[in-house]
């Protein structure tokens, strides 16, 4: 069975606004990094049924959004059907379910 989804060392780090005192938050908002997906690896073959399970905040949606090309990974590699999703090639987007 050929693998049509290949994910290698995939990481996504969000910048989240830090809670600060009133004046600091008015003029100098500060962000802190939040690791949403941390170096995950998996491969999915053609026709294979896979469930993505995890608690709230585990990074399920973030992973799927990176697979569709909506989010750019902070690091790592993704290959879906031979395409890199973030290239946003029209042939690839045509194959996404509407």
């Amino acid at each position, binding site marked *: 069975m050929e693998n049509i989804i290949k994910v290698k060392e995939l990481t996504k780090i969000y910048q989240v606004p830090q809670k600060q005192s009133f004046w600091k938050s008015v003029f100098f908002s500060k962000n802190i990094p939040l690791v949403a997906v941390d170096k995950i690896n998996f491969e999915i073959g053609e026709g294979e049924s896979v469930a993505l399970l995890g608690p709230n905040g585990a990074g399920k949606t973030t992973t799927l959004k990176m697979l*569709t*090309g*909506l989010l750019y990974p902070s690091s790592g590699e993704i290959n879906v059907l031979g395409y890199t999703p973030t290239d946003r090639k029209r042939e690839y987007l045509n194959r996404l379910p509407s």
Partner: protein
Amino acid sequence: MKPLVFEEVKIRWVILKANTLFTLKESLAYSLNNWGGLASTITYMLTYLVLLSAIFGRIKTLAGYNYSEILMLTLVSQFNFYLAWVWSIRNLDQLGEDVKTGKLDLILTKPLPALWYVTFQKVNLFMLVFEMWPATLPLIYLLIKNMDFQISLRGLFLGLLSFVFGHIAIHCFQFVMTTITFWTGEHRGLNGLGYSIAFFGDSIPLEAYPKRIMGLGLTAVPFLAHTALTTSLILGRTTDSRWVWLSFWVMAIFIIIKIKAWRLALRQYSSASS
């Protein structure tokens, strides 16, 4: 190669047509909004014309422009203002909102030229036809009645080019400012600033600006080409076509900056939808 280019142009035309029709339908659904918009723009224009007649009742020229030339400047400024509201400003607000709420997902996951789509998501034909002309007619009437200058065909042509180049350049400038939303998640204040810069001094003749501000306003922050330079060219006060070439190159550079900023911004998109 050619069919591919043709196909790309066709896709963009279809998007433009569909978005324009949708915006028109949207406008027609809220008639009170339309009457309110019409009344407010006519009131603004009449107030401004009264102010101008009060000023020119006491003085003969303002920065070297007589009454009819100032009316011409106002006319160009009005065309620029309405055109910006027809296609540019509403789309910038919409883009900021879509980034903030994550609605941009719906565009990014479609096999469409996304930058084109967000640029022309709303094209308000209704405003162009039913708001712009009624509010501008008193101005045109006064201009014809008091016309005290000659317009050459060359000046008019160069002015039109400068108008288009300047209009696109300032849109791109505002767009780049809006892309900051991808980093900050906020857009209202920045869009307001972009709007203020775009219409900065649009009732001041080009010749009134100090050289340094003129240089800045025709290049890095292109707020002078769409109205001030255009009027100066139409009135024949500026005759050197190199200014139009400058506007063209500034527009071209700003289009490239817009595309680059869009690509960079997409890398920061946090897709706030769930």
